[in-house]
């Protein structure tokens, strides 16, 4: 009798009824989306660099011969190098083809390959693996991947987990990463969130719903329409900097531009302190996990018949000196050995005799001058590399 009364009381609860309505609605959304496909996994409320790149790549008509992967080290070399070579301002969110690499390789080999750059600031080895796994597949598969790597991409101390990057979050909506769900997440909260996303459609499709809400707000808000169609940089830099530290990665169409290395180059920026922090007390778990993703990338490339060239990126000697003693050499030998064991090539382009301080914008990033020099050196090395030559001459 008491049990019956208790059950009756629970049935009279409006909160439980609300929860039931929510679950019905959530399931309804799922069923409707499966039937009518009204959401796109490529849609996002924030225009992150991976969003710009993935959408840019989708618009490409054919697969590139060479795909460039890497973090900001490769990204700045690509944009600043091309800006300097072409003497033209480059828009970082829509500049994907490497003029430097294409032209220098054409000079060396007589063949002008097509390229597409996936290099994104902050890219970890895990992100590079996911980009290759999800985007560089099927009829969009390149012949060669050139992956510019540096120790930061394996050990960044500021990274909570592999799953915490914008690239991971964005691509996990396009592809199913259930096989690495446990290893990519380190905290209980992340696992709990993942479980909830698997269960609830409205949570896993949150970016689509927010994107729709944004569109609605822009349509309804006075001045909103003006803002969304504006092609000029309008947000003051101080606000962008503030947003960068607090909001999801988001860049407007004309907000990230890089100019040619000119008569008055940008002054050298000493970011020693930032890297001291990044290299401080290396988390062995992160390092091992990221090396694991690097190996996955190598195996995936081999499996798909893509020639992977791992390029050790130039750094200033001062930056290398910030790492724990012996770490840099150990990193190089580990990556080199891994490449050899998995059919990849390892090119060490950190050559202090070639890359002097004048080639750097700070302790790690090349400036326009350095970017051009880097792609020249890379083209020289690639032209001599048999595996590269063989891969490029294959027809797909």
């Amino acid at each position, binding site marked *: 009798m008491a049990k019956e009364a208790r059950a009756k009381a629970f049935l009279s609860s*409006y909160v439980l009824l*609300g929860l039931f309505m929510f679950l019905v*609605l959530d399931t309804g959304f799922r069923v409707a989306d499966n039937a009518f496909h009204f959401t796109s996994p490529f849609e996002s409320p924030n225009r992150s660099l991976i969003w710009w790149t993935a959408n840019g790549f989708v618009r490409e008509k054919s697969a590139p011969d060479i795909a460039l992967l890497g973090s900001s080290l490769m990204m700045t070399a690509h944009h600043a190098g091309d800006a300097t070579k072409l003497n033209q301002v480059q828009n970082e969110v829509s500049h994907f083809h490497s003029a430097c690499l294409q032209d220098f390789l054409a000079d060396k080999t007589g063949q002008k390959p097509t390229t597409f750059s996936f290099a994104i600031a902050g890219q970890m080895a895990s992100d590079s693996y996911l980009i290759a796994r999800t985007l560089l597949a099927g009829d969009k598969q390149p012949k060669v991947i050139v992956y510019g790597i540096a120790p930061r991409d394996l050990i960044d101390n500021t990274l909570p987990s592999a799953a915490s990057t914008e690239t991971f979050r964005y691509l996990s909506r396009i592809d199913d990463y259930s096989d690495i769900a446990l290893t990519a997440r380190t905290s209980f909260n992340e696992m709990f969130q993942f479980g909830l996303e698997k269960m609830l459609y409205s949570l896993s499709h949150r970016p689509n719903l927010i994107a729709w809400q944004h569109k609605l*707000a822009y349509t309804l*808000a006075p001045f909103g329409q003006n*803002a*969304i169609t504006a092609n000029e940089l309008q*947000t003051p830099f101080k606000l962008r900097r503030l947003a960068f530290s607090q909001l999801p990665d988001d860049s407007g169409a004309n907000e990230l531009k890089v100019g040619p290395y000119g008569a008055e180059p940008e002054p050298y920026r000493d970011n020693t302190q930032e890297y001291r922090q990044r290299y401080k007390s290396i988390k062995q778990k992160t390092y091992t996990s990221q090396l694991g993703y690097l190996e996955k990338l190598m195996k995936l490339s081999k499996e798909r018949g893509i020639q992977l060239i791992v390029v050790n990126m130039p750094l200033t000697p001062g930056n290398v000196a910030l790492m724990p003693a012996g770490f840099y050499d150990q990193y190089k030998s580990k990556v080199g050995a891994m490449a050899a064991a998995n059919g990849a090539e390892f090119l060490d382009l950190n050559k202090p005799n070639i890359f002097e301080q004048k080639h750097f914008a700070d302790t790690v990033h090349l400036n326009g001058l350095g970017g051009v020099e880097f792609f020249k050196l890379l083209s020289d090395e690639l032209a001599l590399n048999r595996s590269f030559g063989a891969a490029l001459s294959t027809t797909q």
Partner: protein
Amino acid sequence: MLFNSLTYALFLPIVVALYWASPTKLRVPILLIASYIFYMSWKPVFILLILGLTVVNYFFGFYIHRSEKHKKPWLFAAVATNLLTLSFFKYAYFLNDALASALKPIGMAPPAMPFDIILPLGISFFVFEFIHYVVDVYRGSEPIKSFLAFSLFASFFPTQIAGPIKRFQDFIPQFLSPAKFSIKDFDSGVSLILLGLFKKVLLADNLAFFVQGGFQHPELFNSLDLWVFTYAFAFQIYFDFSGYTDIARGSAMLFGYKVPINFNLPYLAKNIAEFWHRWHISLSTWLRDYLFIPLGGSRGSRWNVYRNLMITMSLGGLWHGASMHFLIWGVFHGAMLALHKMFKESRTWLSERGHGWLSSAIDSKVGSVLSTLFTFHVVCIGWVLFRADTLTIAGDMLRKLFFIDSIAGTVPAQAMALPAINYPLIYPAIFLLLPVLALSHIIMGYVDKTNWVERSPRLVKAAWCCALMLMILVFSPDKSPKFIYFQF
């Protein structure tokens, strides 16, 4: 452990389930253990502080009650212990800096702090609860006999970090005669938590970035822009703190406990005194009972009352934080309350002499609307002092708010800079959001007045909960700032 975290979303149901599944005798100990775990989830070592103060105040209560000759010295010792603890953690740096400024002209400097002091979470709140306890025992209330109940009174996790500041006379009887599980309390509790989360994560957090942009870089904006930022902060702090209070009250309700309300549509107040009856009610009544009245309250000469108001509000300002801008904010409110009192007296004086036109005008419908708008703007000016990181920024903002720049002819050519900002969404959306928020205050006033929610059919209430769940899940920002009142 933040109320708006996944950890709390797991912690709360587990404790609720354990609580109701246990025999009645075990319920208070379970809540106490849960409260200590909740507190230790931040910095475990500070459990010693809350435990230490609990033990000390428990015994002070008995000494004050039993002593016939030394009641006052015991009370003095109890209040001093609490205030010194609070001052050590909260005001040591402030006092050291003030001393440094005072000694600077004579070329001297105080010794540097020998160690870092971290402000323990919730200290301002539980210290005020202890002071209330010992003072009320001194005034004749019976001390709490059960040490368990007393410990839980101070550490009860829903109200531990940012109140509402409870009164033991209301709270302890709830321990002694525990409520039975009621689905009505469960429903009310969960809907309050959902409403609180909605206010915090959807409204306050989405406004937070916008507000920060304006208050950190006022130089980028002109007068009209800065008014928009100021209005936005007024709503941000209201939704942040009242959202927190709703979650606290809702969480307590899940255990069958009632804690006092803290807000009653404050921006509908028609004057500043009414505002303080509607804003952070548990603090304003505490200040009234344990500071304003002991200072003499409204008794004595007119100037004594003004003085009491100024002292009470200035200390209330300092309670919020050891910083000059909080002190100035308190002084500002003290001055506004004193001015309001003067104005009220003038009204009465005029009415008594047959000039009732002023009272009639103010009491008319138009007068009420204008009074509400005027009070809201006075409060907003106070918020500038409260939110600005430094007095210099506050000064810059206030100067711009009142068009001083335009008089000097330096206002930028465009009327507003905000619409030109392309990023992020909150900038263009703010022109939609602010009127909606202002309107929501009026609608909530009607809903409260007519008891609309209680009278609605079950299906409507369920749909409301469903909508809240969906909106909280989908539209919460990725990074949620801490509750503003956690820093106090």
